[in-house]
Structure formats: structure tokens, C-alpha cells
């Protein structure tokens, strides 16, 4: 037993978590007694807040995320890294600290899909409540909690990390690297996520209920809420730290670990997309961390950053919260979309059997979005009461950011033109994405127009827009990516018939659910309400019915994934006849990815060029570049 408690793992993690709570209890007690406060040792709120901050760190130490660094820092002999922990031989290996990027990728994807289903169930509950006006199933507190936790989970625990997970699996393979640049940091980044998710879901058990101020957590409402709010404030810190560490890891990996011959303009667009996304994350995410630390300090210690009730002598700035928050949270929508653009570029090129149309413009438009993405945040604040002139430049930049996005859409269309299009499940999701994302983009441009935005901000029009870009946009690309790389990640093929059924059900019921929300929004139904005027009842009932069917379509996906992973037919190494490097190794790839270091000799999308290859498994000295059109000597294509 003591051996189990000393070795890294779940037993030690449990013991350390208990230690962490005890630490919080002691620290709060000591400080309160030093300050001569009443209620010294059993101040529940204080203990909870310190425990929320501290216990997860203790847990991570117990699990073994920090072992190597602690040994090294204290000058003790570090355990030699023999890579024995790479790879996974049973499901139990996915519940350990593992430094293999392929294992971590699957850990990320499975964890985030778990939270997708939890968040989706919350959406079902909300739709049940909204089927009719009046209150039926949940109280106002529960309803506000449901939409807040729903949004927080799906943003911080699903869309952002699932892209990080897919990229974790695919990017090192795509650039010909054996692993990420910092494998231990990679493992630590992953293990912070389940903690953040547990905290957010666990907030429902907090006295006073879960956090209920929306995922935006606007101050000063959020600084006055019951303790459940802190589960969001602190949970975001862990999700954000995970995000920042992963982004740094991607940047270093992409900059320093590309295979010989892989210049920046020979990188697949998914690599470009994750490079751009990581830049956004590294620059922007510290701002959301700051905004939530302000809220924490306001609520826990009365700092009054945001408490602005002048009558009581408080002169905090309420608008400051929104500026800091949106300076992250607008770039965040690109963090949640650019990796999807990368996935779509891969799939459309491979499935249409044509090179990406305008490769360089595709890469430059990503960088343009990164730069412009930092200049538009205040379009979320057109009715916030900020200085009114700021609205004008923000309107113009918001409209202009549609130009690089448009370039991407038109380039995908041109890639389809005269191709040989395979309409299998990944491609259907990619084409579905083009449809729904175009609609989401158009409603985005409409929202940039200040006078129209003044009428519809904080209405269901916004709810419709955000779901068209995050569900019809991000989630469709995630489905496309999961189906596309499923053979590579699991070594088995998914069921194509079920995949198509999933696509059509999702596509139809998605539109039936979210398109009518535009209409009720313009008509005047505000968002974030459990009860609404009688005039909206017919439309809401229709939306609820469609949303339940949309929920059912997810079960088809779940069944397909679980059964195909266990029983699907074996996948060949390159079932899609793709050129990028991850398809040139076995499915699933060898433990160290490449038995021989690949050399990149051409662009990633030279479909239709006779004999063109992207990479060959020869030493750089032997390899000769194969310009487009020349005949290669490599045996790597099937």
C-alpha cells in the first residue's frame, strides 16, 4: 500500500488531493486567526476557494505530472527516459501520465467529446424548459446555471481542446517529427483539462447552485454571486493554462522540428492553421486569465476592480471587465475556427483529388485573420455604453475580417472545381461546413453593422449566429476531422453508412434548430431567459422538437465510433491516397512515428501531378527535390 502511495498514479493523486484540501483548511484558518476574524476554522467559502486553486495542483503532483522536474530541480537523479511509457497497450494506459503525443491526442479527443455530451445534455434540458412559455422543469437559478455551464464546457472543454487533441495527434506526424517539442509539458497540459471540466460540472453541487452568469461572467454580477461562480472563475484558469502551454508547445514544435526539406511553404495547411491558432492563444489567453483573476480578487478579497456603485463610494470600472474579457474572447472565436479551416483544407484537397487552390493566399489569409482578430473585440460592446466613437473603427475591422475568410471559402470552392469528388463522410461534413459557415459568416457581417446590432444584440439572433459558427462551423469540421483521421488514430475503419446517416441527420436538424432562432431574435426574444412572451411559443416548440432530434443524431455518431474502434475492419496505412506524411506510416503509426526520418521534397497537395510526392524516407543527401510535374523515384505512394 505504501508503495502504491509513493509511486505516481491515482492512489498518490487521491492522497495528495486530500493533502491539498487540508492545506487549504490550514492556510485559511491560520490567516483568519492572524487577522482575528470570527469563524476562524470553518469558513466554508474561503476554504473552498483556496482548495479549488490548490487541490488540483496537489492532484497533478500526486498523479506524477511534476516528478521529472522535481527530481531534476532538487538535484536527485532523474529517471532515465527510456520511452517505455510511450504507446498504449490497454485502455488503462490512457488514464496515466503519458508523454506520447499520440496517446495524449486520443486522451484529449475522448475527454473533450465526453464534455460535448455532458454539455449537449444540458442544452436538451434547456430546450425542454423552453418548449413552452412559463416555468416547467427547472427553476430560474437552474436554468441560468444550465446555459452558463453549457457554454463554458463547450467552449473551454470541447471546441478548444478537441482541436488541440486532433493537432496533438496529427501535427508531429505531418511535419515528420517523432513527438512534440516538450512531451512532459504536453502531458501536464492535458491533465489540467479534466480538472477544469470536473470543477465546472461540479459547480452544480455548490451551495447556492452552479455559476449562473453566462460564460461571459460579466462583472459586477459575477462578483456578487454565490460560491458556485468561483468554480468557473478558477476552472477557466486551469483550462487557460492548459491552452497556453499547449500553444507554446505547438509553436516550438512547428518552428524547430520540421523534417528536412519541409519549408514553411511546404507545410500542410493544418500545420499553418495550428501555428496561427497558437499565436492567438499565446497572446490572447492571458487576458481571460487576468479578467477572471480580477473577479476572484473582487469577490474573495473585496478589491473593487469592478464594483462601481458610486453611492457607496466604490469607483471600480465595469466596462474594464468587458474590454479585458473580449480582448481574449473575440480572438477565441478564431482559436475555435482556424484549426477547423486547416482540417477542411486537408479534406477538400484529398477528397477532390486536386491541389489546394491558391495555397499561399490560404496561408496568408490565416495570418491576416490572426492580426485583424486583435482589432475587433469591442464589436461585442456596441450597446455597452463605451465611448461611442470606438464603435466605428471596430465596425470597419469586423467587416474587413470577412475578406480573408471569404478568400478561404472561394479558394475551397475553386479547389472543388473540376476535381474528382469523393462524397464520403468527411467530405460531406466539409461541404456541410461550407454551407453553414457561410451563413454564420453572413450573419456575422450583418452583426458588424452597428444599427442592426443595436437591435439584435443579446437576442436569439446572437444565439443563432454563434451556433452557426461554432456548431455549423467548428463542430462540423471536428466531425470531418474525426472521421478523416479515425483510421489513422485507431487502425480501423468507421462504418460509412452510419457516418452518412449521422451527417444528414445532423445537417438537417441543425438547420431546423438554429435557423428559426434568427427569426425570433429579430422579432425581439432576448437570450438567456427561461420564460418568454406568448408570441414566441410556436417557434420555440418547433426548435425544441428539432433540437431533440439533433441530440438523437449524436447517438449515431457515438455508436459508430465505439463499435468501429473495437470491431471495425482494419485500416490500411493510407486509405484516402493522401500525400501528407501522417498517411505514409502504418495505421496506427509506430511508437516513434517514423522508423526513418522523412525528407520533404515537394508541396503537400500535388494531387493530379503525375508521380509527385510530398516526402520520401531517404536521407537528405540521397533525396532530390521533385518539382511539380516530375517523376519521383520514391516508393512511398501506394
Amino acid at each position: 500500500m505504501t508503495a502504491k502511495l509513493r509511486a505516481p498514479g491515482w492512489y498518490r493523486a487521491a492522497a495528495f488531493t486530500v493533502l491539498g484540501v487540508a492545506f487549504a483548511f490550514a492556510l485559511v484558518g491560520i490567516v483568519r486567526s492572524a487577522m482575528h476574524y470570527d469563524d476562524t476554522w470553518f469558513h466554508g467559502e474561503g476554504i473552498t476557494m483556496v482548495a479549488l486553486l490548490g487541490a488540483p495542483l496537489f492532484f497533478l503532483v500526486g498523479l506524477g505530472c511534476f516528478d521529472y522536474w522535481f527530481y531534476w530541480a532538487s538535484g536527485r537523479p532523474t529517471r532515465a527516459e527510456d520511452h517505455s511509457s510511450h504507446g498504449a497497450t490497454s485502455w488503462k494506459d490512457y488514464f496515466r501520465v503519458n508523454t506520447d503525443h499520440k496517446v495524449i491526442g486520443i486522451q484529449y479527443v475522448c475527454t473533450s467529446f465526453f464534455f460535448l455530451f455532458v454539455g449537449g445534455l444540458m442544452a436538451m434540458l434547456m430546450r425542454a424548459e423552453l418548449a413552452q412559455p412559463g416555468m416547467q422543469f427547472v427553476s430560474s437559478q437552474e436554468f441560468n446555471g444550465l446555459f452558463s455551464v453549457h457554454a463554458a464546457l463547450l467552449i473551454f472543454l470541447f471546441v478548444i481542446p478537441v482541436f488541440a487533441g486532433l493537432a496533438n495527434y496529427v501535427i508531429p506526424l505531418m511535419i515528420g517529427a517523432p513527438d512534440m517539442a516538450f512531451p512532459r509539458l504536453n502531458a501536464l497540459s492535458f491533465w489540467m483539462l479534466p480538472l477544469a471540466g470536473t470543477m465546472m460540472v461540479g459547480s452544480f453541487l455548490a451551495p447556492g447552485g452552479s455559476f449562473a452568469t453566462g460564460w461571459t461572467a460579466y462583472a459586477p454580477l459575477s462578483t456578487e454571486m454565490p460560491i458556485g461562480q468561483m468554480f468557473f472563475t478558477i476552472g477557466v484558469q486551469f483550462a487557460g493554462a492548459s491552452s497556453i502551454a499547449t500553444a507554446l508547445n505547438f509553436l516550438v514544435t512547428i518552428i524547430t522540428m520540421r523534417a528536412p526539406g519541409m519549408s514553411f511553404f511546404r507545410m500542410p495547411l493544418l500545420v499553418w492553421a495550428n501555428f496561427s491558432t497558437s499565436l492567438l492563444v499565446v497572446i490572447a489567453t492571458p487576458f481571460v486569465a487576468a479578467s477572471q483573476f480580477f473577479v476572484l480578487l473582487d469577490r474573495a478579497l473585496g478589491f473593487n476592480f469592478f464594483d462601481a456603485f458610486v453611492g457607496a463610494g466604490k469607483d471600480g470600472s465595469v466596462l474594464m471587465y468587458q474590454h479585458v474579457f473580449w480582448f481574449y474572447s473575440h480572438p477565441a472565436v478564431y482559436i475555435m475556427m482556424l484549426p477547423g479551416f486547416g482540417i477542411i483544407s486537408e479534406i477538400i484537397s484529398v477528397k477532390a483529388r486536386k491541389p489546394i487552390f491558391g495555397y499561399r493566399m490560404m496561408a496568408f489569409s490565416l495570418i491576416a485573420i490572426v492580426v485583424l482578430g486583435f482589432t475587433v473585440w469591442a464589436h461585442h460592446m456596441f450597446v455597452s455604453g463605451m465611448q461611442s466613437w470606438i464603435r466605428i473603427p471596430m465596425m470597419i475591422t469586423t467587416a474587413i475580417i470577412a475578406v480573408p475568410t471569404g478568400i478561404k471559402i472561394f479558394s475551397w470552392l475553386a479547389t472543388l472545381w473540376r476535381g474528382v469528388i469523393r462524397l464520403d463522410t468527411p467530405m460531406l461534413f466539409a461541404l456541410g461546413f461550407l454551407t453553414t459557415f457561410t451563413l454564420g459568416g453572413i450573419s456575422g457581417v450583418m452583426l458588424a453593422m452597428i444599427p442592426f446590432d443595436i437591435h439584435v444584440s443579446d437576442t436569439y439572433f446572437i444565439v443563432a449566429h454563434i451556433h452557426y459558427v461554432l456548431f455549423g462551423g467548428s463542430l462540423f469540421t471536428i466531425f470531418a476531422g474525426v472521421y478523416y483521421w479515425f483510421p489513422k488514430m485507431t487502425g480501423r475503419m468507421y462504418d460509412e453508412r452510419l457516418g452518412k446517416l449521422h451527417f444528414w441527420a445532423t445537417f438537417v436538424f441543425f438547420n431546423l434548430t438554429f435557423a428559426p432562432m434568427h427569426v425570433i431574435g429579430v422579432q425581439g426574444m432576448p437570450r438567456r431567459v427561461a420564460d418568454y412572451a406568448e408570441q414566441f411559443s410556436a417557434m420555440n416548440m418547433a426548435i425544441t422538437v428539432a433540437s431533440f432530434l439533433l441530440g438523437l443524431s449524436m447517438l449515431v455518431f457515438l455508436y459508430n465510433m465505439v463499435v468501429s474502434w473495437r470491431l471495425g475492419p482494419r485500416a490500411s496505412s493510407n486509405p484516402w491516397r493522401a500525400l501528407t506524411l501522417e498517411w505514409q506510416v502504418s495505421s496506427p503509426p509506430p511508437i516513434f512515428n517514423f522508423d526513418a526520418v522523412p525528407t520533404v521534397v515537394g508541396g503537400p497537395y500535388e494531387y493530379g501531378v503525375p508521380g509527385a510526392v510530398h516526402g520520401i524516407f531517404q536521407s537528405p543527401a540521397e533525396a532530390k527535390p521533385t518539382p511539380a510535374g516530375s517523376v519521383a523515384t520514391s516508393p512511398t505512394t501506394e
Partner: protein
Amino acid sequence: MIAIGAIASAIGIALALWIDWFPADAAKQAAPIDTLYDVLMIVSIPIFVLVMTVILYCVWAFRMRPGQEHEDGPPIHGNTRLEVIWTAVPAILLVSLCSYAYAVLTDIEEKHRGALVVNVRAVQFAWSFGYEGEDGRSVTSSQLYLPQDRPVLFRVTSDDVLHDFWVPAFRVKIDAVPGINTEVRATPTELGTYSVVCAELCGLGHAVMRATVHVVTPAAFDRWLARRSAPAPVAGGGAGGDDGGQPGEGDLAAIGKQTFADAGCAGCHVLADAGAAGTTGPDLDRSLASASEDEIRTAIVDPDAEVEDGYQPGLMPQNFEETLSEQQLDGLVTYLATVSK
């Protein structure tokens, strides 16, 4: 393909213009915003149709047919002229739309001399509207009365958290921000009653934070303001839905019943007599059954003095003593004491 696209666009635009998207149009600000929306539709629909037409045509014309399993498409890497076109045309289009939107914005936010100033105060979860009455007396009302065809400047603020003052029929909204005054302008044009909606999440009662706007004739408005600013407290009242014409008369309980509806009590409370079924606050049929008139009055003007088990303090608005007239308050107490027994 072009013909199909053009026909589809025409049908789409016709449909978009035919659908009645917006709520009632009751202010000068509404028409320019509605027109902007129509213009956005006319521009957007052809773009969406273009994307859809190309996708559907490609799927129909270029899908893989049996025997093509190992074929690739032609290696077209790009076309600079095409790429310049689809960068420049959207950019020009978007800048033009921005210019038009800017023109609409200056139009709807135009300042007018002699605008009526209404001080809007938001508190969880109620609105109060302050006017300057006769002799500079300040008048506070829980309902919004506005004269027809006179520009109004709303000065909005909040006593606690963020709220948002929105009249869908006027198309304008602005956040109520604690610590600062925000401003929004509207010129009501149509007589009638419309709703004021809180559009910014403000806590548990957010969904029920509503008030009513009465747009009345200028003469009726002046009469209403004069009556509300009259010094004698007993002459107050009359905030009922009577276009501000006649003061409420008759027994106190009738005034109370009207007040119960006007002040939005039904949003949060159950009261069988008024058909109210709100669940945010306590069930009044039960909790007031044994309460005296004094206790009821305290529960209204100082709701946190004693909070029923299972409910949070701070939810019920604290300002009914200000927003209700003495007569309304007396009426409400009498009414509640009568019907809850």
C-alpha cells in the same frame, strides 16, 4: 448555372423582403434600421446562393463515378486574377456597407434640441423612470410614459449590476451600467403600449424584468406629468393602463389589483386571485395567509428585512417605496391582505 443562381437569388430576396421580420414599428429609429436589414439581405442572399450553386454544381458534375477510383483532378494551383477579384470585390462591398451603416447610425442617433429627458434606473429586477415634473419636482414612475412625436433622450444607469434598456418596438437598446450614465435616443411615433425588456443577464429575475411603455398624445402626457408632480400625496396614482387620462378611483383593492399587474409582481410570485404563477419568489397565497397589513407593507418596501426560507435575499426590487405612489402602495397592501386570506 448562372441562370439557376440568378433565379434562386431572386426568389430568396423576394422571400426575405416579404417576410415580416421585425416587431411593431413605433419610433422614428425603426424604419432606417429595418431598411438597413433589407439591404443586408439583398446583398447577402446572392453571395450565399453563389456558394451553394458552386457546391451543388461541383457535387453534381464532378462527383466520382464508378471507374474513377484512382483518378485525380487536374493540377490547378491557382489563378492570380481570380484571387485578386475575390479579395477586392468583397472588400469594396464591405466598405460600402459600412459607410451606409454609418449613415444610418448618425441618422438614428441625431441629437435634438428640447428632447424630453427620461432618467431610467435599473435595479434587480425592476425599472423606474424619472421625469422632471412641474416646478422642477422630480417624478418617478414604474411605467414609462412618452409623448408622441417628441424626441426622447434616455439617461440610463443601474443601482446594482448590468442591465440593458431595450424597447424592441423602438429598435434601440443600451446597457444600464452601474457608476456611469449611458444614453440612447428614440422618437416615438405610434400611439400604443409596448414592452421594455431587460436584455442583459442580470440574475435570477432577468426573464421577468419587464415594464410597459405607453406612447400617448402630448396633451395626455402633460396631464399625466402634472398629476404625478402635484404636491398632495393622496392625489397621486393613476399609473394604470388608462393612457394617463383619468386617475384611478374606486376602492383601494381595485387600485391594488391593478398595481399588482403593473409593477410586475406576477413575474415572480404566485397569487391565485391575479392568475399569477411566477416561481422566482415565494407563493403569496401561502406566505401572506397569516400576515398583517403592516407586515405586508414591510415585505414590499423592505423585502430583505425578512426573507422566506429557501429564497435568496437581494432578489426582490428594493425601490417600490419610490416607484409606487402612496395610493398604489396602500392599494396593494389592502388588496394582498384581502385576497390572501
